[in-house]
């Protein structure tokens, strides 16, 4: 079974500063990895996903993530954040067969400070 650990529950950062949201996963099989963003009282929206190929994945809103198999990590980064990036971010994992539902981390609350 897969599991996901998001190491930081809250990350405050000043506007235009860089940010990294950390995600580590555990799985005995090959996985797909996802980052979702949730704005207040809304559903989750896909930011980016890693399926195969290049380990650096670019997503929407200027975010990118890097898959590191040896460290079982999939950290999310943005070089310069905006106030509008304030939201909850979730890392998720599924197996290649897609036979099990997505497993989510507990989320990281990103607060961008003006």
């Amino acid at each position, binding site marked *: 079974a897969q599991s996901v650990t998001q190491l930081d*529950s809250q990350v405050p950062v000043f506007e235009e500063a860089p940010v990294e949201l950390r995600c580590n996963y555990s799985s005995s099989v090959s996985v*797909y990895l*996802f980052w*979702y963003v949730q704005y207040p*009282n*809304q*559903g*989750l*929206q*896909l930011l980016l*996903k890693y*399926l195969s190929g290049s380990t650096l994945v670019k997503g929407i809103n200027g975010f990118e993530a890097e898959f590191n198999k040896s460290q079982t990590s999939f950290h999310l980064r943005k070089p310069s954040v905006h106030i509008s990036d304030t939201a909850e971010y*979730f890392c*998720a994992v*599924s*197996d*290649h067969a*897609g036979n099990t*539902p*997505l497993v*989510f*981390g*507990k*989320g990281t609350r990103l607060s961008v400070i003006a």
Partner: protein
Amino acid sequence: SQTIHQWPATLVQPVGSPLSLECTVEGTSNPNLYWYRQAAGRGLQLLFYSVGIGQISSEVPQNLSASRPQDRQFILSSKKLLLSDSGFYLCAWISKGHGGAEAFFGQGTRLTVV
């Protein structure tokens, strides 16, 4: 294109009252459907999933039940709500195509049991 509808958006119910949340999907057939609950600081907890009409799998014992009366309809119910049932409920459809198992979420229902 595939869309997922979830209603109502907000709901305030007294303890002991019944519950019915509805989720419908458009633009696909025979989807895998999921109900998640989100509590503050706890991420997304998978409650139920369904791979077809009348097929329901429960992930955790609880005061809730789910039904799938039609291919693209998934209902979350309770006969008697508890205070602990309060939370943000999300319906999701998970694809298993070439893109891997990616989840598409409804806008969520904020349930407050008083």
